[in-house]
């Protein structure tokens, strides 16, 4: 029987049939592999030819060369005599800075607006909806250019800077009250404002000026105290969780940690005699001297990115909260939990499960969108490297590949961290 089957000519052909998934799979793979090899080889050969014809060097040797251009915002020491590699680092740090601050601002604003969209108050709800629609439906580059060209450029010159602080606030309140006929309230406020010190933070069309802390001798002890406070808070949180799981007793972790983090460094500072003093910016001639000045490009980029992303985060938060069924809050209320604990212990932990994955991709989008700073001249990784360095060296292949690799690495690291977090908060199913 089996012999007859083997000798059947039709079976012999079927072994070579196109409907055989194994054969089809290997044919497809061989063809695709050949195409890929040809593609890579021809790209390589063409690139070799083009580069030698255009006289462009190849390899990563240029990273050691003198950069020769200045950068307007540097977090690490840099001058134009340093190498392209150093400029790359400066740009990378600038990108990380704007992305980090942008993520924090966008999260705060986004959660506020998202909760406001669920408010019973129709005015607040309408305002939040309008915010979301406007920010989400305008291109991010448009928003960056708008903040930079229209808003920040319209700010006063350094000589007429806006001071930010208690003195201008109370002064404005006082004169405002006096203007609407409440002079008996306004006058003391104005007098109080005059008694206060001059403001230390200034806004003008050259950016934002603020005091810079100068750490004197013995500041290390303060830092050590801060680290100690953080470690102790962490240990307290662990102990409190264990005790709660064992006995159900609550411990005010948040307040005790906050107290530790504030008090311990203060004690340390008192011990070494407060070695920190502020370098306050002051007007000299046509511009401010001293202090920490933030370039307007950074301010425009940060404002645009965080307000744009906040619109998306608001929608994510709203849908996350809506995804927790009403029965959950009803059950919590019937157990005797008040609104605050209900939100904190029941609603938010469950909503976070829905919120975290899309939130991650918004954080990544913000980081990637920070490359749009090139349009206003913010010296981020993209502007310094794919912009200036590419112009000077012409080594497009290495430079664009390096830039892409950095963003890819940031993407991968972020999604790994968020994946870990997501696994931790995921629903434990029986």
């Amino acid at each position, binding site marked *: 029987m089996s012999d007859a089957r083997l000798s059947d000519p039709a079976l012999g052909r079927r072994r070579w049939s*196109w*409907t055989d998934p194994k054969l089809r799979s290997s044919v497809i793979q061989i063809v695709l592999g050949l195409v890929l090899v040809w593609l890579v080889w021809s790209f390589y050969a063409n690139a070799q030819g083009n580069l030698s014809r255009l006289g462009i060097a190849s390899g990563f040797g240029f990273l050691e060369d003198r950069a020769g251009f200045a950068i307007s915002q540097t977090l690490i020491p840099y001058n134009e005599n340093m190498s392209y590699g150093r400029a790359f680092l400066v740009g990378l740090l600038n990108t990380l800075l704007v992305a980090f601050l942008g993520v924090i601002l966008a999260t705060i604003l986004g959660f506020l607006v998202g909760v406001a969209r669920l408010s019973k108050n*129709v005015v*607040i709800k309408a305002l939040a909806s309008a915010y979301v629609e406007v920010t989400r439906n305008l*291109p991010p*580059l448009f928003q960056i250019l708008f903040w930079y060209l229209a808003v920040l450029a319209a700010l006063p010159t350094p000589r007429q800077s806006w001071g930010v602080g208690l003195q201008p606030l109370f002064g404005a309140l006082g004169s405002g009250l006096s203007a609407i006929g409440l002079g008996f309230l306004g006058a003391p406020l104005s007098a109080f404002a005059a008694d206060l010190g001059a403001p230390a933070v200034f806004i003008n069309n050259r950016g934002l000026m603020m005091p810079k802390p100068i750490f004197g001798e013995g500041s290390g002890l303060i830092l050590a105290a801060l680290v100690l406070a953080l470690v102790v808070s962490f240990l307290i949180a662990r102990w409190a969780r264990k005790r709660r799981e064992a006995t159900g007793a609550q411990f005010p972790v948040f307040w005790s940690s906050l107290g530790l983090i504030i008090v311990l460094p203060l004690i340390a500072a008192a011990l070494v005699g407060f070695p920190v003093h502020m370098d306050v910016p002051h007007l000299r001639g046509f511009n401010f001297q001293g202090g920490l000045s933030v370039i307007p490009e950074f301010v425009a980029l940060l404002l645009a990115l965080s307000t744009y992303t906040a619109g998306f985060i608001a929608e994510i938060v709203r849908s996350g909260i809506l995804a927790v069924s009403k029965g959950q809050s009803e059950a919590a209320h019937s157990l005797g939990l008040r609104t605050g604990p209900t939100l904190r212990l029941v609603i938010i932990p469950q909503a976070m499960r829905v919120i975290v994955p899309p939130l991650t991709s918004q954080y990544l989008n913000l980081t990637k969108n920070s490359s749009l700073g*090139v*349009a206003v001249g913010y010296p981020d990784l993209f502007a310094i490297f794919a912009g200036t360095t590419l112009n000077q060296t012409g080594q497009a292949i290495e430079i664009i590949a390096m830039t892409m690799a950095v963003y890819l690495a940031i*993407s991968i690291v972020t999604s790994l961290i968020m994946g870990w977090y997501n696994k931790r908060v995921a629903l434990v199913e029986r």
Partner: protein
Amino acid sequence: MTSETIFVSSTFREPEPPPVSDRGPVRWVRAHLLGTVPQVLLTLFGLWLLYVVVPPLVQFFLVDAVWSGTNRTACLPADVGHPVGACWPFIWAKINQLIYGFYPAGERWRVNVVYALGALLLLPLVLQQVPYKRLNAIAFFGVYPVVAFVLLTGGNFQLRHFLLGYLGFDALFPRVAPGVSVSWVFWTDYVLSSVLLAALAGGIARVVAGPDAVRGAVRTVATIMVPLALVLLAVDVNFGLEPVETRLWGGLLVTLVIAVSGITVSLPFGILLALGRRSSVPLVKICSILFIEFWRGVPVITVLFFATYMLPLFLPDGMTIDGLLRALVGVALFASAYMAEVVRGGLQAIPKGQYEGAMAVGLRYGPMMRLVVLPQALKLVIPGIVNNFIGLFKDTTLVLIVSIFDLLGAMRAAFTDPNWATPTTLFTGFGFAGLIYFVFCFGMSRYSMALEKRLDRAQRH
């Protein structure tokens, strides 16, 4: 019977109305505006915000606005004598630049025809009641891009040779005098190449799968070569249109060209990539995943830089690509990757039973996907696709960084005109451009939401 009087009402009594505080507008105000002290504070805060934002905007764009004038003096407060809001004559003066770029004035009717044709084809496609959706979709995604391409560039590309020519068989073909409207060399080459390809495919099919498969293989070659011939013919024929270089294009024209080509290219490639990502063939799967994750992981602007500065280095010497086309390649790369993820979501939502059912009735991979899985999956993700289009539309602005003047770029160029340098020019320009972007994106998002609602209802049986 006792004579006890029992009163039984034969009708229900009208219920008393609820107290005044709990009905009508009073209740609404209590529930939504002034219920508790925090509520009152929130309402006051909201009203204050409205007061701060809305009246100044109306004041700026309408009340104080200047509506006519020929240069900047019309918009200077010193010359007008009152505070000046939006400077609208600036927009009127630049409107052609914003809509057409530097497209020659005499040829602008072609752009208008393209705009009108697009609207004419798109409108019935998005309206639910209009029939012939499939035909309409083919017209919009297949025919319209070709027509628009020929109209905008002028066509008449004078194709020289096809496959055989590249392989070095040029000498086989007769020389034709230049100036003939259709290049006969090319078309002889095309027909010969097609016949050869069909014969090759048929031969391979016969060896691998037997004589029954020959007809199918030839048909497959024909379904690729015949539409391609039509497209190439449209590009090749001389319609007598003046050629217009793409560097003269600009403004809204470029924005829409990039958006529409991104959409038409990303849809088929995105579907292919999504299928590849779920394929059981390891190499196909790995390549799809790498392609998708790479282009999604890097910023869009680096993709445009890649296409503009890096890609030309990879091409053979002497082969140059038009600047706009380079940007379009970049857009196509990342738009396809984004689209693939949307389509994948739809594919994953189709229950396994659908695949198994299709296989059980004897469908092979292609027909199974085309007839059973994709129609259901794509219908599920239409809102996602539209949202993707919104993102793509917003991303078109990025081409201004590689020196292509889209709407935002044209506006930025217009700002530099010293004839119109006034304190309010910038705000006017941003207001106008913002309105255009907002109308497009907001319109699409409303459409996607309506669609979602409708599909939701259809799903719920």
